[in-house]
């Protein structure tokens, strides 16, 4: 940065703005490549490929090792392209071996599979390349800087500024002039029709996946001269890419380009003009775009999705007397745990109980409400902060804090939910993500109130709950009551209205159901129950940090629900217990817990394409059918 002097201040400022603008454009190149890949894959296969960030990271790592081996000017560029090709092959392998088995699974289930792959890749890159940041070589021929209006702009940045539009043009040409491209565009509009016309859908999907992953990996490889390669770059990019794809409109490559430029310029200038809200700015803009244009800048409303022939969901039914007795037995066993368990086991068990309630609340929203959320931790975290504020600022007792704290989560859910229920499907889910990020950023940056990164400390349970057994019983009791309440809701008239609105919006409206209002109420309720779990979590940990609102926690909850089975009422409960037990146990047993957890998730996904709960239901139906 050139220091500003009084003389020619305005022209200097203008020059500086131009330089900053070019830097933003250069950053947009990689982001656009990754986002366009995700967008193309979603458009054709309807898969939200969570592993896209992992492929971006792999592209960077593989390019790094190839540039070490290839020599000469040509070697560098060959290394980038080869890296992208190698990673594209890996992507194709994943598509053929994993995703092809689960295309027919319920919506978003594929996201769980790609999440499992992401976990594995994160550990694998550390195993193969080590945990240190790796600095790649500079691009041969583009090492210097170019003087533009007195500002030194790296030549490589200018190369990227040019490359982005070139790639956009190449994709456009491929989509509009080749037979394959026409098929891809047709499939984006109506893939069933394309299949009905005799196009081999399998290979169309695979080729689209190959292109999408190639673009992601190339995006990662191109970052080599600009930033150090590390094993957490996947999470950072995937969130940005989600934002870009949603702002641009899912399935639109041009939209992805515009949105990538918008996001990068917002980042480049936001930090200068409004540093205190820089973290929120992009998400606030995303929320604004979605509220004004529910399908993104250049996206189009989805054609009505046809349910797959031969798939129907067994109607939900209440427990039979025998099942009720079995559940009561399990609850009794859980209540007796303190008789034979030590403090550590009890704190783990309390945490599981808390997550059972959290996952059940998300399951209620997704399963009964049909409203997927990628940001459910917002309400969990708000509940935790609410309890902390009630205790610290208002001076309430623990009981008061657990009772009143969740109201903060309820308020957040009422506010955010009003917008979210007006969008549909993945767009709605992405808006929940944006709101969660905004809540996170507020907790992170409003240091005077929230303590920022240092969190709020000293939130310890009192009275009977001060002992590990006491707190476990409290958590268990609240979790059981919460889950029971959610279950009652599902079978109540309200639950019927909610499920009706999910199944068929037009029919529900024609029967006098106000879909938005009923879904809004469901959103608020789900937020409230999540907030109760959050308040308990604050007392379990004795502290609250911004990461209780963070994306990883939202993703955990999503993984629990999908693992348990969205279509099964008990899916959230089963998924939370399985996922939490597994991850806590693995954490204590192995240094590569992510690798193993990811692998287990991938295996479970293949073995139980309707979740663990769905597998139970099917087994029960089969046994019941044989007995009858």
């Amino acid at each position: 940065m050139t220091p500003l002097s009084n003389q020619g201040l305005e022209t200097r400022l203008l020059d500086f703005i131009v330089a900053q603008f070019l830097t933003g454009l250069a950053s947009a190149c990689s982001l656009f490549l990754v986002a366009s890949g995700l967008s193309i894959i979603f458009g054709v296969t309807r898969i939200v490929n969570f592993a896209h960030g992992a492929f971006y990271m792999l592209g960077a790592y593989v390019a790094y090792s190839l540039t070490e081996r290839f020599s000469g000017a040509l070697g560098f560029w060959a290394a980038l392209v080869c890296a992208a090709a190698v990673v594209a092959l890996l992507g194709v392998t994943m598509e053929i071996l994993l995703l092809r088995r689960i295309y027919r699974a319920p919506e978003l289930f594929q996201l769980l599979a790609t999440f499992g792959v992401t976990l594995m890749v994160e550990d694998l890159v550390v195993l193969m390349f080590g945990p240190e940041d790796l600095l790649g070589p500079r691009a041969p021929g583009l090492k210097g800087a170019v003087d533009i209006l007195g500002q030194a702009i790296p030549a490589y940045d200018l190369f990227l500024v040019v490359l982005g539009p070139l790639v956009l043009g190449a994709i456009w040409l491929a989509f509009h002039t080749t037979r394959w491209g026409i098929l891809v565009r047709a499939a984006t509009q109506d893939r069933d029709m394309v299949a009905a016309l005799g196009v081999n859908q399998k290979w169309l999907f695979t080729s689209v996946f190959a292109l999408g992953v190639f673009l992601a990996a190339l995006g990662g490889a191109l970052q080599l001269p600009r930033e150090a390669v590390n094993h957490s770059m996947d999470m950072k990019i995937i969130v940005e890419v989600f934002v870009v794809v949603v702002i641009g409109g899912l399935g639109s490559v041009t939209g992805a380009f515009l949105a990538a430029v918008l996001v990068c310029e917002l980042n480049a200038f936001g930090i200068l003009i409004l540093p205190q809200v820089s973290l929120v700015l992009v998400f606030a803009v995303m929320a604004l775009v979605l509220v004004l244009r529910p399908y993104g800048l250049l996206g189009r409303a989805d054609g009505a999705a046809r349910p797959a022939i031969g798939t129907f969901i067994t109607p939900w039914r209440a427990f039979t007397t025998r099942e009720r007795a079995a559940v009561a037995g399990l609850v009794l066993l859980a209540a007796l745990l303190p008789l034979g368990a030590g403090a550590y086991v009890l704190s783990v068990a309390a945490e599981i109980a808390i997550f059972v309630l959290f996952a059940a609340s998300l399951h209620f929203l997704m399963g009964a409400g049909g409203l997927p959320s990628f940001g459910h931790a917002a309400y969990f975290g708000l509940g935790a902060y609410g309890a902390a504020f009630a205790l610290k600022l208002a001076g309430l007792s623990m009981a008061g804090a657990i009772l009143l704290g969740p109201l903060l989560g309820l308020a957040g859910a009422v506010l955010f939910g009003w917008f979210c229920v007006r969008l549909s499907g993945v767009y709605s889910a992405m808006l929940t993500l944006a709101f969660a990020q905004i809540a996170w950023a507020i907790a992170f940056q409003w240091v005077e109130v929230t303590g920022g990164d240092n969190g709020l400390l000293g939130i310890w349970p009192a009275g009977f709950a001060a002992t590990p057994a006491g707190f476990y019983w409290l958590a268990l009791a609240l979790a059981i009551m919460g889950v029971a309440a959610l279950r009652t809701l599902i079978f109540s008239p309200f639950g019927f209205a909610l499920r009706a609105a999910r199944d068929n919006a037009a029919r529900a409206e024609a029967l006098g159901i106000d879909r938005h209002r009923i879904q809004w109420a469901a959103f608020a309720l789900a937020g409230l129950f999540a907030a109760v779990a959050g308040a308990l979590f604050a007392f379990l940990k004795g502290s609250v940090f911004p990461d209780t609102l963070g994306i990883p926690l939202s993703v955990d909850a999503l993984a629990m629900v999908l693992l348990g089975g969205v279509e099964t009422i008990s899916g959230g409960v089963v998924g939370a217990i399985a996922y939490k037990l597994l991850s806590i146990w693995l954490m204590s047993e192995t240094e590569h817990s992510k690798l193993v957890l990811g692998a287990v998730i991938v295996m479970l996904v293949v073995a139980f394409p309707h979740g663990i709960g769905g597998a139970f239901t099917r087994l029960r139906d089969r046994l019941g059918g044989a007995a009858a």
Partner: protein
Amino acid sequence: MSPPLLEAKGLAKSYGGVAAVRGVSFSLAAGEILALIGPNGAGKSTCFGLLGGQVKPDAGTVRLSGQDITGAPPRRLFRLGVGRTFQIAATFASMSVRENVAVALLSHHRALARPFGPAAHHHHAESDALLDLVGLADQAGRASGELAYGDIKRLELALALANAPRLLLMDEPTAGMASGERIALMRLVARLARERNMGILFTEHDMDVVFEHADRVLVLDHGTLIAQGSPAAIRADAHVRAIYLGTGLTFAGDADA
């Protein structure tokens, strides 16, 4: 004189530059069965959307017993006693047949906001009666998503009847049904119209169904009403014949004439 049950005046709707419906006016009396016919693309479905609240008109008014309901959302029409079935049958696929009917009945009784107590316990007698009426009593426990298409159409009719409507809008009620089923369904609908003094507006491609059951027929072409009158008059109308002959469709009844 009391106003007609349903009265449309000068309804118009364009999509981009294409006028789908231009200046359609007609009325429907209580207890009357009115058929809306016309070749593909004539504007029948748009007309239905305009009347059912799915599509907002560019111009014109719709009145229900004199009350202006132009552009009213579907859920308000339900409260005013309008029932609706869709061209592509719409039910709640993940719920059982009885649960589908329960949703409609609970909504009719304004009990859907209740967050406690099993919904299945409500209005049992009423749902039994509805299921009996449409002939689905023996399939009450099945998932509606696994029903045969003709049965889904009958379930949809049961849902539309749950609020004891005074006006029933049916967009191609018998499409996709076997001919025996068509006759049974339309006989049921005609009987209800007489018994309950319920007005019925329906579109239909099967001219046998139209001429057998309609009291009066409206003919739509290129978004304009080109004829209306009794089935016999419509059958004899040269203009109508020209349009249908132009699409390769002939009236089955003519073979006997």
